[in-house]
């Protein structure tokens, strides 16, 4: 899912499973209970088969290849050479790998924090606006959200173009020195900052619009009552809105972490991980190393490590979902 929607786009949040308030669902009469037996298995069979064949097999093979010497020669001769932990040893000894890990973490943390904070503020602002301004702002948000990642990346390259980019013009107009033909992509940090702006710009609408939609279900009376009792905006947010919207914030934060962590086109199509591979995040590094340099074994090792890092970071999310499922089945 890139919501990608990238981010997918700007892609997608699963509606959280509804639980019945109060928990207990009245038991159905036996005659109307839905049939068990083989029917459900038949229904999930195509989905399971597709996932296993394409995704499952790829994951397994990825692990296998990470233990193989797999370069251009093996690709052509179609031979398999297992070399044990060599690839992992090589990757873990690479300074570039650790740089990339640190870069990915900082990149993800900074971007997700900014997305959540600004997104929440914009969502709250939408609530305070009159109908006309609200329509204007939400339309602009929808347009930014809908912008396909690849198109957005191309446009950002143009905005930050060295010769004719409007960013350089803006900096000059604002009176900054040194923005005559300034190359925004001449360092890793600068490139990643622009990738970050691109990701934040494309992700805020998702958070803001969904938060706003969720807030409309919070009853006005509760807020009115709190205001009558003398609660300020800050207090109202932390004591009423935040607790009610807690599931929303949890799910959205975790989805954003995953999306930013995995963000590939925004970084790769912007500058190919350059200059000097200084803007490589983990997915970009796996790609450049594996496909770009024909080192499929090394690339696979990096992607196995990336998946492990992501899994550890996300275990909390899985626990959360499991807990919800359990509550529902009980």
């Amino acid at each position, binding site marked *: *899912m*890139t*919501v*990608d*929607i990238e981010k*997918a786009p700007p*892609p*997608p949040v*699963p509606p*959280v*499973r*509804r639980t019945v308030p109060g928990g207990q669902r009245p038991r159905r009469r036996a005659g*109307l209970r*839905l*049939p068990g037996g083989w029917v*459900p298995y038949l*229904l*999930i069979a*195509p*989905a*399971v088969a*597709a996932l296993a064949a394409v*995704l499952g097999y790829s*994951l397994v093979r990825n692990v296998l290849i990470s233990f193989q010497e797999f370069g251009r020669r093996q690709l052509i001769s179609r031979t398999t050479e297992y070399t044990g932990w060599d690839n992992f040893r090589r990757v873990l000894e690479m300074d570039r790998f650790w740089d990339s890990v640190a870069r990915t973490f900082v990149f993800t943390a900074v971007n997700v924090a900014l997305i959540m904070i600004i997104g929440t503020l914009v969502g709250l*602002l939408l609530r*305070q*606006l009159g109908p006309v301004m*609200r329509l*204007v702002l939400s*339309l*602009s948000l*929808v*347009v*930014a959200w*809908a*912008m*396909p990642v*690849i*198109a957005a990346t*191309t446009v*950002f390259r*143009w905005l930050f173009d060295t*010769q*004719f980019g409007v960013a350089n013009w803006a900096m000059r107009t604002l009176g900054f020195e040194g923005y005559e033909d300034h190359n925004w992509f001449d360092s890793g940090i600068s490139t990643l900052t622009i990738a970050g702006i691109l990701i934040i*710009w494309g992700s805020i*609408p998702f958070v803001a619009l969904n938060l706003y939609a969720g807030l409309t279900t919070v009853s006005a009376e509760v807020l009115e009552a709190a205001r009558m009792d003398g609660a300020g905006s800050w207090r109202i947010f932390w004591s009423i809105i935040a607790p009610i*919207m807690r599931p*929303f914030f949890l799910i959205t934060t975790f989805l954003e972490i995953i999306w930013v962590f995995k963000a*590939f086109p925004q970084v*790769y*199509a912007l500058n190919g991980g350059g200059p000097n591979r200084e803007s490589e995040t983990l*997915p970009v590094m796996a*790609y450049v190393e*594996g496909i770009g340099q024909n080192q499929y074994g090394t690339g696979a090792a*990096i*992607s196995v490590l*990336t*998946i492990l890092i992501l899994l550890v970071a996300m275990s909390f999310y899985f626990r959360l*979902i*499991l807990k919800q499922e359990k509550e529902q089945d009980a």
Partner: protein
Amino acid sequence: MNVRKLSLNGVALVLSAIFLFPVYWMFSSSFKENSQVLTKDPVFFFVPTFEHYTTAQNADLFWTYVRNSLVVTIGAVLVALSVALLASYALARMRFRGKRAMVLTVMAAQLAPWEVLVIVVYLNARDLSMLNSIGTLLLVYFVMALPFTIWTLRGFIAAVPRELEESALIDGCTRTQAFRRVIFPLLAPGLMATSLFGFILAWNEYAMVSVINKAPGTDTLPRWLTSFQTAFGSDWGATMAAASMFTIPVLLVFLLFQRRVTGGLAAGAVKG
């Protein structure tokens, strides 16, 4: 009070401008003469020209890429919807052993790091002689979209009151009939909202197609757009026209469906 209102509106106006600007700049650059595009001091008022659109769509194989993108996107969405409909019905309405495992699998698959799996998908496709084929791409996109589609549809099916289905059963419908006549019609908005995600995913996908479909003629629009930039060097006007043409379909679909999607999400999230 009035000052507060005014400043809020001011902030909202600035924010709208920030969010719109890149999109506005893309469209406006695509309608300017070259001399107005490639200039140090940007031109804000101009007479629109369509010359860049002509350049862009006359580029090699443009219409092939359009066709490929459409086939892959629509195909993947339709297949994903039909497979997901079956699975999500089972997950939402039936009790069976292994259901929790299935839910977890779907959940985990949704987080699948496809971006780092491109290497293996490439090797798999090569071993099966399935490189440079629209069908392979369609298959991969279908599986990429599947977990999310199941997840969302399950929510929509669960939201249809059981009582409706049960009264249909009491009135003598079979399960299949009850599904076809009661649940399916109520599900239509859900299906539309869900298809939006698959649509965006497949329309935008870049990493996978860059690796498994390298032969000219089997590419899709995202690849065309990025290579266009290289091929046309600094012809930013034509590049922006290409980006605009790529964006317009998504923009239309989004403006049509967006409310439904955010609404459904919020309902689920708050009640969760």
